[in-house]
Protein backbone atom coordinates (compact mmCIF):
# COMPACT_ATOMS: atom_id res chain seq x y z
CA UNK A 1 0.00 0.00 0.00
CA UNK A 2 1.36 3.43 -0.87
CA UNK A 3 0.81 4.84 2.65
CA UNK A 4 1.79 1.73 4.60
CA UNK A 5 3.25 2.45 8.00
CA UNK A 6 4.28 -1.14 8.52
CA UNK A 7 7.84 -1.76 7.43
CA UNK A 8 8.05 -4.35 4.63
CA UNK A 9 10.41 -6.60 6.64
CA UNK A 10 7.75 -6.97 9.32
CA UNK A 11 5.09 -7.72 6.74
CA UNK A 12 7.34 -10.39 5.22
CA UNK A 13 7.85 -11.93 8.64
CA UNK A 14 4.10 -12.06 9.30
CA UNK A 15 3.50 -13.33 5.78
CA UNK A 16 5.86 -16.24 6.50
CA UNK A 17 4.14 -17.13 9.78
CA UNK A 18 1.30 -18.91 8.03
CA UNK A 19 1.39 -21.95 10.32
CA UNK A 20 0.16 -20.12 13.38
CA UNK A 21 -1.54 -17.05 11.93
CA UNK A 22 -2.92 -17.95 8.52
CA UNK A 23 -5.26 -14.92 8.29
CA UNK A 24 -2.65 -12.44 9.42
CA UNK A 25 -0.16 -13.99 7.07
CA UNK A 26 -2.60 -13.72 4.19
CA UNK A 27 -3.30 -10.10 5.08
CA UNK A 28 0.39 -9.33 5.20
CA UNK A 29 0.89 -10.96 1.81
CA UNK A 30 -1.93 -8.81 0.46
CA UNK A 31 -0.26 -5.70 1.83
CA UNK A 32 3.00 -6.68 0.19
CA UNK A 33 1.21 -6.74 -3.14
CA UNK A 34 0.79 -2.99 -3.44
CA UNK A 35 -2.72 -1.86 -4.18
CA UNK A 36 -4.22 -5.34 -4.13
CA UNK A 37 -7.89 -5.31 -3.03
CA UNK A 38 -8.63 -7.03 0.26
CA UNK A 39 -10.18 -10.46 0.06
CA UNK A 40 -12.81 -11.99 2.35
CA UNK A 41 -11.54 -14.25 5.12
CA UNK A 42 -11.39 -17.80 3.82
CA UNK A 43 -13.34 -20.67 5.40
CA UNK A 44 -11.35 -22.79 7.83
CA UNK A 45 -12.15 -25.35 10.51
CA UNK A 46 -12.36 -23.87 13.97
CA UNK A 47 -9.44 -24.74 16.23
CA UNK A 48 -9.75 -23.30 19.75
CA UNK A 49 -6.00 -23.62 20.28
CA UNK A 50 -5.05 -20.89 17.84
CA UNK A 51 -5.96 -17.51 16.52
CA UNK A 52 -5.79 -17.11 12.77
CA UNK A 53 -5.22 -13.40 13.18
CA UNK A 54 -2.26 -12.01 15.07
CA UNK A 55 -3.56 -9.78 17.89
CA UNK A 56 -0.70 -7.31 17.53
CA UNK A 57 -0.61 -7.24 13.77
CA UNK A 58 -0.96 -3.70 12.50
CA UNK A 59 -3.67 -2.17 10.34
CA UNK A 60 -3.89 1.20 8.63
CA UNK A 61 -6.68 3.31 10.09
CA UNK A 62 -7.22 6.97 9.22
CA UNK A 63 -8.17 8.53 12.55
CA UNK A 64 -9.30 12.08 13.26
CA UNK A 65 -10.06 13.20 16.82
CA UNK A 66 -11.78 16.50 17.50
CA UNK A 67 -12.38 18.40 20.73
CA UNK A 68 -15.92 19.78 21.19
CA UNK A 69 -14.60 21.87 24.10
CA UNK A 70 -17.58 21.28 26.39
CA UNK A 71 -20.08 22.47 23.78
CA UNK A 72 -22.63 20.45 21.79
CA UNK A 73 -21.35 21.75 18.47
CA UNK A 74 -19.86 19.03 16.27
CA UNK A 75 -17.26 18.15 15.24
CA UNK A 76 -15.31 20.72 17.25
CA UNK A 77 -11.63 21.51 16.75
CA UNK A 78 -9.49 18.84 15.04
CA UNK A 79 -6.72 18.06 17.53
CA UNK A 80 -5.12 14.77 16.44
CA UNK A 81 -4.83 13.22 13.01
CA UNK A 82 -3.43 9.85 11.94
CA UNK A 83 0.22 9.44 12.77
CA UNK A 84 0.39 12.54 14.98
CA UNK A 85 1.89 12.32 18.45
CA UNK A 86 -0.14 11.95 21.64
CA UNK A 87 -1.65 15.25 22.78
CA UNK A 88 -1.51 14.66 26.54
CA UNK A 89 -5.31 15.03 26.71
CA UNK A 90 -6.38 11.60 27.97
CA UNK A 91 -9.79 11.61 26.28
CA UNK A 92 -8.22 12.48 22.91
CA UNK A 93 -5.47 9.90 23.20
CA UNK A 94 -7.73 7.16 24.56
CA UNK A 95 -10.18 7.71 21.70
CA UNK A 96 -7.29 7.60 19.21
CA UNK A 97 -5.95 4.34 20.63
CA UNK A 98 -9.41 2.78 20.93
CA UNK A 99 -10.24 3.57 17.30
CA UNK A 100 -6.98 1.89 16.33
CA UNK A 101 -7.83 -1.25 18.31
CA UNK A 102 -11.31 -1.35 16.77
CA UNK A 103 -9.99 -0.89 13.25
CA UNK A 104 -7.51 -3.71 13.86
CA UNK A 105 -10.15 -6.26 14.87
CA UNK A 106 -12.35 -5.60 11.84
CA UNK A 107 -9.41 -5.39 9.43
CA UNK A 108 -7.22 -8.25 10.63
CA UNK A 109 -9.90 -10.73 11.63
CA UNK A 110 -12.81 -9.99 9.31
CA UNK A 111 -10.95 -8.39 6.39
CA UNK A 112 -13.01 -5.21 6.73
CA UNK A 113 -11.08 -1.96 6.29
CA UNK A 114 -12.91 0.53 8.51
CA UNK A 115 -16.65 1.09 9.00
CA UNK A 116 -17.59 0.99 5.35
CA UNK A 117 -15.02 -1.63 4.31
CA UNK A 118 -13.33 0.96 2.09
CA UNK A 119 -11.00 2.71 4.47
CA UNK A 120 -13.41 5.44 5.56
CA UNK A 121 -11.80 7.84 8.09
CA UNK A 122 -12.63 7.06 11.72
CA UNK A 123 -13.78 10.25 13.35
CA UNK A 124 -14.48 10.98 16.98
CA UNK A 125 -15.32 14.03 19.06
CA UNK A 126 -14.50 14.16 22.77
CA UNK A 127 -15.42 16.60 25.57
CA UNK A 128 -18.97 16.86 24.20
CA UNK A 129 -21.39 18.94 26.30
CA UNK A 130 -21.19 19.71 30.00
CA UNK A 131 -21.42 16.85 32.50
CA UNK A 132 -22.67 14.81 29.56
CA UNK A 133 -23.35 11.22 30.68
CA UNK A 134 -23.35 9.55 27.32
CA UNK A 135 -21.57 8.47 24.17
CA UNK A 136 -23.24 7.95 20.81
CA UNK A 137 -22.79 7.37 17.07
CA UNK A 138 -24.36 10.18 15.03
CA UNK A 139 -24.09 8.53 11.64
CA UNK A 140 -20.72 10.09 10.82
CA UNK A 141 -18.70 10.07 14.02
CA UNK A 142 -18.44 8.81 17.57
CA UNK A 143 -19.20 11.38 20.24
CA UNK A 144 -18.06 11.09 23.86
CA UNK A 145 -19.14 13.04 26.93
CA UNK A 146 -16.89 13.50 29.97
CA UNK A 147 -19.53 12.29 32.46
CA UNK A 148 -20.77 14.23 35.46
CA UNK A 149 -17.92 13.12 37.73
CA UNK A 150 -20.37 11.80 40.35
CA UNK A 151 -21.87 8.77 38.64
CA UNK A 152 -20.08 8.67 35.31
CA UNK A 153 -16.32 9.19 35.02
CA UNK A 154 -16.24 9.54 31.22
CA UNK A 155 -16.56 7.26 28.22
CA UNK A 156 -13.53 7.59 25.96
CA UNK A 157 -11.44 5.55 28.41
CA UNK A 158 -13.57 2.47 27.78
CA UNK A 159 -12.41 0.32 24.85
CA UNK A 160 -15.67 -1.65 24.83
CA UNK A 161 -17.63 1.62 24.55
CA UNK A 162 -15.47 2.80 21.65
CA UNK A 163 -15.84 -0.57 19.94
CA UNK A 164 -19.59 -0.45 20.60
CA UNK A 165 -20.04 2.98 19.00
CA UNK A 166 -17.96 2.12 15.96
CA UNK A 167 -19.85 -1.13 15.52
CA UNK A 168 -23.07 0.90 15.22
CA UNK A 169 -21.36 2.40 12.18
CA UNK A 170 -20.60 -1.05 10.80
CA UNK A 171 -24.25 -2.08 11.29
CA UNK A 172 -25.36 1.07 9.49
CA UNK A 173 -23.16 0.11 6.52
CA UNK A 174 -24.23 -3.54 6.48
CA UNK A 175 -27.47 -4.99 7.89
CA UNK A 176 -28.99 -1.57 8.75
CA UNK A 177 -31.03 -3.06 11.61
CA UNK A 178 -33.87 -0.65 12.41
CA UNK A 179 -33.14 1.01 15.74
CA UNK A 180 -36.38 0.16 17.54
CA UNK A 181 -37.98 -2.80 19.34
CA UNK A 182 -36.46 -6.25 18.58
CA UNK A 183 -34.41 -5.19 15.54
CA UNK A 184 -33.11 -2.26 17.62
CA UNK A 185 -32.16 -4.61 20.44
CA UNK A 186 -30.30 -6.72 17.85
CA UNK A 187 -28.51 -3.56 16.66
CA UNK A 188 -27.49 -2.91 20.28
CA UNK A 189 -26.53 -6.56 20.70
CA UNK A 190 -24.25 -6.56 17.66
CA UNK A 191 -22.60 -3.36 18.93
CA UNK A 192 -21.99 -5.02 22.32
CA UNK A 193 -20.65 -8.20 20.68
CA UNK A 194 -18.02 -6.44 18.58
CA UNK A 195 -17.29 -3.88 21.32
CA UNK A 196 -16.47 -6.76 23.63
CA UNK A 197 -14.50 -8.59 20.92
CA UNK A 198 -12.39 -5.48 20.28
CA UNK A 199 -11.26 -5.62 23.91
CA UNK A 200 -10.75 -9.40 23.92
CA UNK A 201 -8.67 -9.22 20.72
CA UNK A 202 -6.58 -6.29 21.96
CA UNK A 203 -5.86 -8.11 25.23
CA UNK A 204 -5.52 -11.58 23.76
CA UNK A 205 -8.27 -12.94 26.04
CA UNK A 206 -10.04 -16.24 25.47
CA UNK A 207 -13.81 -16.60 25.88
CA UNK A 208 -13.10 -18.17 29.27
CA UNK A 209 -10.91 -15.34 30.62
CA UNK A 210 -12.85 -12.42 29.07
CA UNK A 211 -14.94 -10.28 31.43
CA UNK A 212 -17.89 -10.04 28.98
CA UNK A 213 -18.57 -6.60 30.48
CA UNK A 214 -19.45 -3.54 28.42
CA UNK A 215 -18.33 -0.20 29.84
CA UNK A 216 -16.40 -1.48 32.86
CA UNK A 217 -14.57 1.89 33.11
CA UNK A 218 -17.43 4.38 32.95
CA UNK A 219 -18.62 4.53 36.57
CA UNK A 220 -16.94 6.49 39.36
CA UNK A 221 -15.83 4.63 42.49
CA UNK A 222 -19.01 5.85 44.22
CA UNK A 223 -21.20 3.55 42.13
CA UNK A 224 -22.01 0.01 43.22
CA UNK A 225 -21.44 -1.67 39.90
CA UNK A 226 -19.02 -3.44 37.63
CA UNK A 227 -20.08 -2.05 34.26
CA UNK A 228 -23.00 -0.80 32.14
CA UNK A 229 -23.85 -4.33 31.07
CA UNK A 230 -22.78 -7.92 31.53
CA UNK A 231 -23.16 -10.02 28.40
CA UNK A 232 -22.72 -13.25 30.31
CA UNK A 233 -25.01 -12.36 33.23
CA UNK A 234 -27.44 -9.66 32.08
CA UNK A 235 -29.18 -7.93 34.98
CA UNK A 236 -26.19 -8.16 37.34
CA UNK A 237 -23.90 -5.34 36.13
CA UNK A 238 -24.90 -2.85 38.83
CA UNK A 239 -27.16 -2.46 41.84
CA UNK A 240 -26.84 1.03 43.18
CA UNK A 241 -28.82 3.48 45.35
CA UNK A 242 -28.78 6.16 42.66
CA UNK A 243 -28.88 4.10 39.47
CA UNK A 244 -31.14 1.33 40.68
CA UNK A 245 -30.59 -2.21 39.49
CA UNK A 246 -29.37 -3.36 36.08
CA UNK A 247 -32.72 -3.91 34.27
CA UNK A 248 -31.52 -6.23 31.50
CA UNK A 249 -33.41 -9.51 31.06
CA UNK A 250 -31.36 -12.68 30.54
CA UNK A 251 -34.17 -14.82 29.11
CA UNK A 252 -36.80 -14.34 26.39
CA UNK A 253 -39.56 -15.03 28.94
CA UNK A 254 -38.57 -11.77 30.67
CA UNK A 255 -38.61 -9.65 27.49
CA UNK A 256 -39.51 -6.06 28.42
CA UNK A 257 -42.36 -4.59 26.41
CA UNK A 258 -42.00 -0.81 26.40
CA UNK A 259 -42.02 2.19 24.05
CA UNK A 260 -39.29 3.93 26.01
CA UNK A 261 -35.65 3.62 24.93
CA UNK A 262 -36.88 3.18 21.31
CA UNK A 263 -38.71 0.07 22.41
CA UNK A 264 -36.27 -1.19 25.03
CA UNK A 265 -33.27 -1.53 22.72
CA UNK A 266 -30.73 -1.25 25.59
CA UNK A 267 -32.78 -3.55 27.81
CA UNK A 268 -33.72 -6.55 25.66
CA UNK A 269 -30.25 -6.74 24.07
CA UNK A 270 -29.34 -8.71 27.22
CA UNK A 271 -31.13 -11.76 25.79
CA UNK A 272 -29.06 -12.18 22.59
CA UNK A 273 -25.96 -10.96 24.46
CA UNK A 274 -26.18 -13.93 26.81
CA UNK A 275 -26.79 -16.32 23.90
CA UNK A 276 -23.58 -15.08 22.25
CA UNK A 277 -21.45 -15.22 25.39
CA UNK A 278 -22.68 -18.73 26.23
CA UNK A 279 -22.04 -19.95 22.69
CA UNK A 280 -18.53 -18.46 22.72
CA UNK A 281 -17.72 -20.07 26.06
CA UNK A 282 -19.08 -23.43 24.93
CA UNK A 283 -16.99 -23.24 21.75
CA UNK A 284 -13.88 -22.31 23.74
CA UNK A 285 -10.80 -20.54 22.45
CA UNK A 286 -10.93 -16.99 21.11
CA UNK A 287 -14.43 -15.61 20.63
CA UNK A 288 -13.45 -13.40 17.67
CA UNK A 289 -12.80 -16.68 15.85
CA UNK A 290 -15.58 -19.23 15.65
CA UNK A 291 -18.72 -17.60 16.99
CA UNK A 292 -17.47 -14.08 16.22
CA UNK A 293 -16.94 -14.99 12.56
CA UNK A 294 -20.45 -16.49 12.45
CA UNK A 295 -22.01 -13.26 13.74
CA UNK A 296 -19.99 -11.20 11.26
CA UNK A 297 -21.09 -13.52 8.43
CA UNK A 298 -24.74 -12.85 9.33
CA UNK A 299 -24.16 -9.11 9.45
CA UNK A 300 -22.75 -8.96 5.92
CA UNK A 301 -24.84 -11.80 4.42
CA UNK A 302 -27.55 -9.63 2.96
CA UNK A 303 -30.05 -12.11 4.42
CA UNK A 304 -30.78 -10.25 7.65
CA UNK A 305 -33.92 -8.10 7.36
CA UNK A 306 -33.77 -4.53 8.67
CA UNK A 307 -36.72 -5.28 10.93
CA UNK A 308 -35.52 -8.77 11.95
CA UNK A 309 -36.67 -10.24 15.25
CA UNK A 310 -34.65 -12.38 17.63
CA UNK A 311 -35.89 -15.71 16.24
CA UNK A 312 -35.00 -14.83 12.63
CA UNK A 313 -31.57 -13.62 13.69
CA UNK A 314 -30.98 -16.78 15.72
CA UNK A 315 -31.88 -19.01 12.73
CA UNK A 316 -29.47 -17.07 10.51
CA UNK A 317 -26.61 -17.51 13.00
CA UNK A 318 -27.19 -21.27 13.10
CA UNK A 319 -27.32 -21.43 9.28
CA UNK A 320 -24.12 -19.35 9.07
CA UNK A 321 -22.37 -21.60 11.59
CA UNK A 322 -23.34 -24.66 9.55
CA UNK A 323 -22.16 -23.00 6.33
CA UNK A 324 -18.79 -22.03 7.76
CA UNK A 325 -18.03 -24.94 10.07
CA UNK A 326 -20.30 -27.80 9.01
CA UNK A 327 -23.55 -29.44 10.13
CA UNK A 328 -22.23 -31.45 13.04
CA UNK A 329 -19.63 -28.87 14.07
CA UNK A 330 -19.01 -27.82 17.65
CA UNK A 331 -19.61 -24.17 16.67
CA UNK A 332 -23.03 -24.89 15.17
CA UNK A 333 -23.98 -26.85 18.30
CA UNK A 334 -22.70 -24.09 20.61
CA UNK A 335 -24.67 -21.41 18.76
CA UNK A 336 -27.87 -23.45 18.84
CA UNK A 337 -27.44 -24.24 22.52
CA UNK A 338 -26.85 -20.54 23.34
CA UNK A 339 -30.18 -19.52 21.82
CA UNK A 340 -32.01 -22.42 23.44
CA UNK A 341 -30.69 -21.47 26.88
CA UNK A 342 -32.07 -17.93 26.61
CA UNK A 343 -35.41 -19.18 25.30
CA UNK A 344 -35.30 -17.82 21.74
CA UNK A 345 -37.12 -20.31 19.49
CA UNK A 346 -34.94 -21.73 16.71
CA UNK A 347 -35.71 -23.99 13.73
CA UNK A 348 -35.28 -27.74 14.25
CA UNK A 349 -31.77 -29.10 13.71
CA UNK A 350 -30.84 -30.60 10.35
CA UNK A 351 -29.64 -34.17 10.67
CA UNK A 352 -25.87 -34.46 10.38
CA UNK A 353 -24.81 -36.01 7.08
Amino acid sequence: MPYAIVPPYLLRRVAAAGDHYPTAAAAARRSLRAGAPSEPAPVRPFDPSQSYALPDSPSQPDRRISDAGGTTRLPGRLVRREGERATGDEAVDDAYDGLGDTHRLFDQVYGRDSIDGRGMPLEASVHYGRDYDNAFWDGARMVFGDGDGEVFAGFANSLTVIGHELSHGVVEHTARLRYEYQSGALNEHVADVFGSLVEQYARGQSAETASWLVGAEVFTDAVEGRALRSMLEPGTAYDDDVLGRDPQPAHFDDFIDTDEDNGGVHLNSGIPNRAFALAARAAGGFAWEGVGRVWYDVLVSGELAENAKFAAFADLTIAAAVRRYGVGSAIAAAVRSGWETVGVPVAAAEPAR
Partner: protein
Amino acid sequence: MDVVVVRSGGLAGLRTEWRVDVGAQPDADEWDGLLRSLPWRTATSTAPTPDRYVYRISCASHEATLGEGQLTGPWRSLVDRVQQTVEPTRRSRPPARPRSR
Protein backbone atom coordinates in the same frame (compact mmCIF):
# COMPACT_ATOMS: atom_id res chain seq x y z
CA MET B 1 -50.74 20.58 36.83
CA ASP B 2 -47.57 18.55 36.43
CA VAL B 3 -45.11 18.65 33.59
CA VAL B 4 -43.24 15.37 33.29
CA VAL B 5 -40.03 14.70 31.39
CA VAL B 6 -38.89 11.09 30.99
CA ARG B 7 -35.47 10.57 29.47
CA SER B 8 -34.67 7.04 28.30
CA GLY B 9 -32.07 5.39 26.10
CA GLY B 10 -28.53 6.60 25.86
CA LEU B 11 -25.65 4.13 25.81
CA ALA B 12 -26.44 3.13 29.40
CA GLY B 13 -30.16 2.69 28.77
CA LEU B 14 -31.02 4.44 32.04
CA ARG B 15 -34.47 5.87 32.67
CA THR B 16 -34.65 9.24 34.42
CA GLU B 17 -37.81 11.16 35.25
CA TRP B 18 -38.34 14.77 36.29
CA ARG B 19 -41.73 16.00 37.53
CA VAL B 20 -42.62 19.63 38.25
CA ASP B 21 -45.85 20.83 39.85
CA VAL B 22 -46.21 23.97 37.78
CA GLY B 23 -48.89 25.58 39.99
CA ALA B 24 -46.59 25.38 43.01
CA GLN B 25 -43.79 27.29 41.31
CA PRO B 26 -43.19 30.95 42.29
CA ASP B 27 -42.92 31.80 38.58
CA ALA B 28 -46.00 29.80 37.53
CA ASP B 29 -46.98 32.41 34.92
CA GLU B 30 -43.68 32.02 33.13
CA TRP B 31 -44.09 28.23 33.14
CA ASP B 32 -47.57 28.61 31.66
CA GLY B 33 -46.24 30.84 28.92
CA LEU B 34 -43.45 28.41 28.09
CA LEU B 35 -45.80 25.42 28.06
CA ARG B 36 -48.22 27.26 25.77
CA SER B 37 -45.43 28.15 23.33
CA LEU B 38 -44.55 24.49 22.68
CA PRO B 39 -45.45 23.12 19.23
CA TRP B 40 -47.18 20.01 20.66
CA ARG B 41 -49.16 19.23 17.51
CA THR B 42 -46.28 19.35 15.05
CA ALA B 43 -43.85 17.40 17.20
CA THR B 44 -43.08 14.08 15.52
CA SER B 45 -40.14 11.94 16.37
CA THR B 46 -37.59 11.31 13.64
CA ALA B 47 -35.62 8.11 12.94
CA PRO B 48 -33.77 7.21 16.13
CA THR B 49 -30.00 7.61 16.38
CA PRO B 50 -27.96 4.89 18.13
CA ASP B 51 -27.34 5.58 21.80
CA ARG B 52 -28.85 9.08 21.83
CA TYR B 53 -31.42 9.94 24.48
CA VAL B 54 -35.16 9.87 23.87
CA TYR B 55 -37.37 12.41 25.70
CA ARG B 56 -41.05 11.97 26.41
CA ILE B 57 -42.57 15.23 27.55
CA SER B 58 -46.11 15.38 28.87
CA CYS B 59 -48.39 17.96 30.41
CA ALA B 60 -52.14 17.67 30.95
CA SER B 61 -53.48 16.05 27.76
CA HIS B 62 -50.39 16.85 25.70
CA GLU B 63 -47.56 14.45 25.01
CA ALA B 64 -44.56 14.56 22.69
CA THR B 65 -41.69 12.11 22.10
CA LEU B 66 -38.53 13.69 20.78
CA GLY B 67 -35.03 12.51 20.00
CA GLU B 68 -32.17 14.33 21.64
CA GLY B 69 -31.30 15.97 18.32
CA GLN B 70 -34.82 17.44 18.07
CA LEU B 71 -34.64 19.03 21.49
CA THR B 72 -34.19 22.61 20.30
CA GLY B 73 -35.84 25.98 20.81
CA PRO B 74 -38.71 26.01 23.34
CA TRP B 75 -38.41 22.25 23.92
CA ARG B 76 -34.82 22.67 25.03
CA SER B 77 -35.81 25.65 27.19
CA LEU B 78 -38.51 23.61 28.91
CA VAL B 79 -36.30 20.58 29.56
CA ASP B 80 -33.45 22.77 30.86
CA ARG B 81 -35.88 24.54 33.17
CA VAL B 82 -37.40 21.31 34.44
CA GLN B 83 -33.97 19.83 35.10
CA GLN B 84 -32.90 22.95 36.99
CA THR B 85 -36.05 23.00 39.11
CA VAL B 86 -36.29 19.46 40.47
CA GLU B 87 -34.08 16.51 41.27
CA PRO B 88 -34.67 13.52 39.01
CA THR B 89 -35.94 10.15 40.08
CA ARG B 90 -34.41 7.14 38.42
CA ARG B 91 -36.08 3.86 37.85
CA SER B 92 -34.04 1.42 35.87
CA ARG B 93 -37.03 -0.51 34.54
CA PRO B 94 -39.82 1.16 32.59
CA PRO B 95 -43.32 0.81 34.07
CA ALA B 96 -44.82 -2.61 33.41
CA ARG B 97 -47.58 -3.00 30.89
CA PRO B 98 -49.43 -6.02 29.54
CA ARG B 99 -47.26 -8.16 27.34
CA SER B 100 -47.85 -8.53 23.65
CA ARG B 101 -45.25 -9.83 21.30
